[in-house]
């Protein structure tokens, strides 16, 4: 065999040997164990710590919150979706409580083309007038509870009992005086709730408390049913205070519960349309001053000035209390 060919063969064999030795030397133990990759990298990836800890992790300390959340509509939204990942909590400090709930809640609830119809959606500008969502909604139980919304009573029996109320609230539930409320056509559930509150002492009034105390639960239901059955009538107010047009802009903040024109969407809340100006002003001021207690109303009226209150009262007093059929239909 010619010398140069022998040299070539030696060179080739030597290169192959060097290549094989290099490969043996440089290839880590676990490469090729399962395939053309480093098997040790799999446990390395699997060993990373989870950043999101799931609601079960939160439950171990915040069991009360967890119970409320898991029983309500937001149970599909996990704790960490709003409060951020729980890794490092509690050792490294608290998790944030979202401050700007308008920004947060509208991520899911802003009405937007493409969102499925089953998703509850709002027109942000009209829904709350820029108010923070958590003023009315508890993020852990967002649905506003409609307390006892169905009240059944005997209107005829209520009529007899109502004789005692007529001197102030009018024979037909239309009060002759600007400071006492009209009752005709008011929602029965609301009337029953307020009467029961006077009876129990949760709500106090010099005149109403002694009158309500002797009433039985049946009386309360009958009275509520009677006044709810009467036809309401808007009596032009003699008191000239406030500016209804300015009040209309403010009333957007109240619309989600009390309706655009003061016809409440839910029987648990009172209708305001056509109510007495003086009465509305007094009640709003009572809420603001803490004389009447309701967590939702307290939060809503906190920022209102006397002028705001008068404008709002003027607006609602000027509305027709006859329910427009469309207004009733909207959910």
């Amino acid at each position, binding site marked *: 065999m010619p010398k140069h060919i022998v040299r070539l063969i030696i060179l080739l*064999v030597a290169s*192959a*040997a060097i290549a*094989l*030795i290099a490969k*043996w030397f440089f290839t880590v*133990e*676990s*490469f*090729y*164990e*399962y*395939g*053309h*990759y*480093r*098997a040790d*990298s*799999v*446990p*390395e*990836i*699997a*060993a*990373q*710590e*989870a*950043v*999101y800890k*799931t609601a079960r992790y939160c439950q171990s300390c915040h069991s009360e919150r967890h119970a409320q959340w898991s029983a309500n509509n*937001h149970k*599909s*939204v*996990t704790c*960490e*979706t709003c409060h*951020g*990942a729980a890794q490092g909590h509690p050792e490294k400090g608290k998790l944030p409580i979202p401050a700007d709930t308008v920004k947060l809640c509208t*991520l*899911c609830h*802003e*009405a*937007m*083309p*493409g*969102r*499925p119809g089953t*998703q509850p959606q709002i027109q942000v500008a009209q829904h709350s007038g820029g108010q923070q969502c958590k003023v009315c909604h508890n993020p852990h139980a967002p649905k506003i509870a409609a307390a006892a919304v169905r009240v059944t009573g005997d209107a005829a029996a209520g009529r007899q009992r109502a004789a005692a109320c007529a001197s102030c609230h009018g024979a037909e539930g239309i009060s002759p005086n600007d400071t006492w409320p009209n009752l005709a056509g008011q929602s029965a559930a609301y009337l029953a709730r307020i009467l029961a509150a006077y009876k129990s002492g949760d709500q106090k009034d010099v005149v109403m408390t002694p009158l309500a105390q002797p009433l039985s639960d049946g009386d309360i239901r009958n009275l509520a049913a009677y006044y709810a059955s009467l036809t309401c009538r808007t009596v032009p107010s003699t008191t000239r205070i406030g500016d209804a047009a300015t009040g209309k802009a403010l009333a957007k903040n109240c619309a989600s519960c009390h309706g655009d024109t003061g016809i409440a969407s839910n029987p648990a809340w009172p209708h305001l349309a056509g109510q007495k100006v003086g009465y509305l002003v007094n009640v709003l001021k009572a809420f603001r001053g803490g004389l009447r207690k309701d967590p939702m109303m307290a939060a809503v009226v906190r920022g209102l000035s006397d002028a705001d209150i008068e404008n709002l009262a003027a607006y609602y007093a000027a509305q027709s209390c006859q329910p427009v059929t469309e207004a009733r239909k909207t959910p």
Partner: protein
Amino acid sequence: MKREAISSLLARRAFLRKIGRAATCAGAIAATGAAGALGVTKKVAAKSESTSRRGSFPTKDYDWTKRQWAFGVDANKCIGCLRCVEACKRENDVPGDAHHFNTWVERYVYLEGDKRARVDSHHDPVNIAASGSEREYRFANRYQDAKVEKAFFVPKLCNQCTHPPCVQVCPTGATYKAVDGVVLIDQKYCIGCQYCVQACPYGARWFNARKGVSQKCYWCYHRITKGLQPACVEACPVGARIFGDRNDPQSPISLFIRNNRVQVLRPETGNAPNVFYVGIDKEVS
């Protein structure tokens, strides 16, 4: 591509693979003979032994031979809140800016008279402006006054293909198909050549310039091996993302695939994706 074309393509791949294996075997036999004296045989024997040496792999509580993961997306349920994107970023230490992400959500909007959909995602300038920051993700309500004929959201992520083209092109074995079906990246072996970023037909991979490696969704492998759900599935408030083990006939994903008429993205590529979609148009790919 037609189905026949795909099958001939696959047949050709299989044939080439066989030839490759035969050549490797011949080489290996020769090499064993040549290098026997160096004790390489011992090492080879040790390596083939080690496959059985391990019990449960990759961790002691998780055996990847028992699982076959798959993912479902129900676009009918998606509300485009982008909590999945947020959760994914936090979970996997993805740079916070809007342009790097493992998962994303596309919005398809057909306006009246339009033949094609308008598509945007959270990194669209209009959406960044609406959120006010590159680090917060939100869809702008930009079509509220337009005449929208049809609109829907489509979550996207790595399809963990059965025949992943990204794995095929990787020159270093840094990305691979795990036995349980997830395509993983070995960050120590990745040299940052970005061939895989080019190869993926779904745009699922991206390059992390800070670390010098390719990254992508890996179905939160560190979570699923601990019995948790991927972070995006955990965060989704409406159940638009479904995850589970196809080996378990009662798992959420098995039920999802069985009870719905599902489709995959770009079936014509022959990649056989493992993310199954419900409620999307032909235009989504």
